[in-house]
């Protein structure tokens, strides 16, 4: 029982309790199921806040550890080891925060097999939390692979017309990356004698040439997940086909597993290799930023546009992370959160209109602001947040990232930052293009079409506004007063940077 009362265990496995309860509810009682799922997710958010209250933000080390020896035979040393530090605390909170929101967004969108949906969704939450909390490589790998399963079903069962293709592609591409990571994990376990991440960090001493290989193996898994250019091909498929809640979680949290992986493993475990790889990663990140932005601009499907914008945004995250200085990394972490909030909100809002119109083609919309003013105004805020308007969250992240990249010793040149800053312009272009074509201009033909089907295009209802409101609060909060967030991150990042300071000087 003590095991379960440890905060991190509780937060990770509490959704399973919800799953258990759900199993005893009749499939027909859809609303009960929804409430139970939502309640579970909300309580879990509360638990995560409780965990946060115990988190000492000035301590750079792993905290609230729940550490048990698990598989300890014949020289195999695998632990059950959950712990949290500044690198992951925000992502944990993001996960527990977005899950109830995503569940709320499915209230009327998911009518088919609600119970299964919620079960998978809560299981997905378990997996994601596990990924962010696991400090044992084996445990991490299990959670990492485990997240694939519910997501695969979410896309495959409740997705769009081409869902099978998308689900399988999502699964295989992600798995393709992770198998290399498995080999690297095994190498570490075999040659370093432990799977525990902090122990591995402490031990260090991996030869530089091997580091590079391990770095690549880990990076393969994470880069596909992020997704870094040019490994992004699965993303538009998965996003477009996934149900709204799936897209929200996919963009909001699952992609962060990739960037988090880079942070936790590639940077912590292989600092020399990370320094060596930094320029290469920067090049890919810059290409991703510009390419993603350009490709977004040319999309006719709004969900695809948002999906490709993730390629661009996460390019920023990667750029910041490999700037290997405080600004870059802290900005990158914050930007992970920002992207989760902004893009999550964008997907939510796209889903809200899609529910009414059943089309995502940009061209049929237009003038929506006039017809649905609340929707339009909220969309504007979210869009501005996504394009990094100062005062909103996106800017704080992007600015610190670019600032970090500009003076990065790992890159040695400000050119990456300068090129990426062009991405900020391009972001304005595609976001405004989307906003203009959908919300400004004359009223689009879809309004008539909806009327034709006997409906009236309505503005957001209370539930939808409630769904979005928490996101907006954070969009403003982080934009105006990000200090509490940075304070959570800073000590851990400082600690993370110690080896890099040694290598790069200063």
């Amino acid at each position: 029982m003590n095991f379960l009362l440890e905060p991190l265990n509780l937060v990770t496995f509490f959704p399973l309790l919800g799953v258990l309860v759900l199993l005893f509810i009749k499939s027909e009682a859809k609303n009960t199921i929804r409430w139970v799922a939502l309640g579970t997710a909300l309580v879990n958010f509360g638990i995560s806040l409780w965990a946060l209250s115990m988190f000492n933000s000035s301590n750079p080390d792993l905290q609230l550890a729940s550490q048990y020896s698990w598989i300890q035979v014949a020289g195999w040393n695998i632990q059950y080891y959950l712990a949290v530090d500044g690198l992951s605390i925000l992502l944990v909170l993001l996960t527990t925060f977005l899950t109830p929101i995503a569940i709320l967004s499915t209230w009327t969108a998911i009518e088919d097999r609600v119970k299964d949906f919620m079960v998978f969704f809560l299981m997905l939450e378990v997996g994601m939390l596990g990924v962010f909390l696991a400090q044992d490589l084996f445990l991490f790998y299990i959670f990492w692979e485990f997240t694939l399963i519910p997501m695969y079903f979410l896309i495959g069962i409740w997705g769009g017309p081409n869902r099978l293709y998308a689900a399988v592609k999502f699964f295989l591409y992600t798995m393709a990356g992770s198998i290399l990571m498995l080999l690297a994990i095994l190498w570490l376990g075999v040659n370093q004698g432990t799977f525990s991440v902090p122990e591995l960090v402490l031990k260090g001493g991996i030869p530089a040439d091997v580091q590079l290989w391990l770095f690549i193996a880990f990076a393969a898994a994470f880069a596909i997940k992020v997704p870094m250019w040019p490994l992004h091909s699965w993303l538009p498929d998965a996003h477009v086909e996934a149900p709204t809640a799936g897209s929200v979680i996919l963009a909001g949290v699952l992609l962060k597993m990739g960037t988090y992986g880079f942070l936790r493993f590639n940077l912590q475990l292989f600092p020399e290799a990370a320094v060596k790889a930094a320029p290469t990663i920067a090049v890919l990140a810059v290409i991703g930023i510009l390419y993603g932005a350009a490709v977004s601009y040319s999309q006719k499907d709004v969900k695809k546009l948002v999906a490709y914008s993730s390629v661009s945004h996460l390019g920023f995250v990667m750029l910041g992370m490999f700037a290997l200085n405080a600004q870059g990394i802290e900005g990158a972490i914050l930007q992970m959160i920002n992207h989760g909030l902004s893009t999550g909100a964008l997907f939510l809002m796209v889903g809200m209109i899609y529910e009414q119109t059943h089309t995502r083609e940009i061209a049929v919309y237009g003038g929506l602001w006039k017809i649905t003013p609340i929707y339009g105004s909220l969309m504007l805020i979210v869009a501005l947040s996504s394009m990094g308007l100062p005062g909103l969250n996106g800017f704080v992240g992007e600015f610190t990232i670019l600032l970090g990249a500009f003076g990065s010793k790992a890159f040695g040149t400000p050119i990456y930052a300068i090129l990426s800053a062009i991405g900020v312009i391009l972001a304005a272009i595609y976001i405004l293009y989307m906003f203009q074509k959908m919300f400004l201009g004359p009223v689009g033909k879809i309004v008539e079409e909806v009327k034709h089907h006997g409906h009236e295009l309505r503005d957001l209802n209370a539930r939808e506004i409630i769904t979005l409101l928490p996101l907006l609060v954070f969009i403003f909060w982080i934009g105006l007063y990000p200090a509490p967030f940075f304070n959570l991150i800073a000590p851990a990042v400082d600690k993370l940077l110690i080896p890099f300071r040694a290598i790069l000087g200063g």
Partner: protein
Amino acid sequence: MTQIDFYTIMPISVLVLCASLLLLLEAFYPKGKQKQIAFFAAFGFALTLGLSISQLGNSYSGFGGMVVLDGFSNFLNILFLITGLLGVALASGYLQRMNINKGEYYVLMMFSVAGMMLMSQATDLIITFLALELLSIPLYVLAAFALNRTESEEAGIKYFLLGSYATGFIVFGIALIFGATATTSFAGIVAAIAQPATNLTLLLVGGGLVLVGFGFKVATVPFHMWTPDVYQGAPTSVTAFMAAGAKAAGFSALLRIFATLFPSFAADLMPILAVLSALTMIVGNITAIAQTDIKRMLGYSSIAQAGYILMAFVPFGDPAIRATAVAAGLFYLVAYTITSFGSWGVVIGLEREEGKGLDINDYAGLGKKYPWLALAMTVFMFSLAGLPPTLGLVGKFYLFRAIMEGKLYWLALIGVITSLISAYYYLRVIVIMYFKNGDPIINKDNLLYMSIALCVVITVVLSFMPSFLFSWASNAMLTMF
């Protein structure tokens, strides 16, 4: 025959005795009530299983060193007996539905299990050879057991002819080994290897031929071709039994022979084993993708799985790691056995008379109509693909770690890449079950579903506490070296 001799073969004797009794019983049993035969068979297996468990920790060597009963054989014996029990559970309803319910089925199965047990205990090539035959001949018959179906007969004759063909190689191989060492006893051979006069080339080639024979039994590429045909044609309950038991038995023999006799030739044999393993994984997995018949697909899958298990044996010559490596192989063997049994069970659950319900597309809609069964199948598919939270993942983890320890990075790479490929066809089953609409029909068979549930539970629960099984496996290995 001394007391020790008796202890050594006690479980086998009991099983054989039970089988003989069952044969008599069956002959005099009123027709139509043969379902109880299954019960008796299960009782026989359970009795033997109890005996085997009671012998855990003991170590005997009997009949002048021809057979032993050590941790290794005990481990495998228990596995074989569980296989037998599950085999009975799977078969009892199936045989009735397929209208081939005859008591001899169980008799033959029990003899076959006796052969497997003997195989794991054998420390003399004569015994190994005879055990191989004792386990194979009933299987030849069982494969053809569904006499009303041409496929079954075809499977039987193919299995028989090719099995005998492989036997031919084994006999010649043993002859060469004998020629080199003047003995067929393991101890004798080991002693002879140490002597300079021994003709090592003969020994090695003999070993190669023996490897071929057992490679055939465990279905490694290129000795695998019978597998899909036979698995498809044989009655599914037999297939399940074959895929789990016969394969495990083959591995137990391979393991004992190679780990005992040939560690000094590791450098020569390792490339062969590695290539066989790699080929098996590649061909098995890739070919499985093109299958539409679920039995055939699982057949290829079992070929591929053999490749993974074989992978663990590749570094058998490295004394530093062979214990953990081979233990990883044993662990994976267990994981595979349980999982594959479960998946075959699901196949049986859906199989209709006249071979209907065997196409993958017949699984469409299973997820909606029978969510529990679909969930079970999903767990098995995940386990075979090596995804959490299943035993398969833990098993693969151990396996790959062993290979990494052996510094066989390329093989590990092939292993992980092919397991990625395998995910594709395992997923396809899931895709069809959950994402496609259909109206599958399943058979009523409580015993079957209980067995499946048991397999699910073991697959999932053991994945969270694999230490016990792994330490058992590695201790079992240590008794052998």
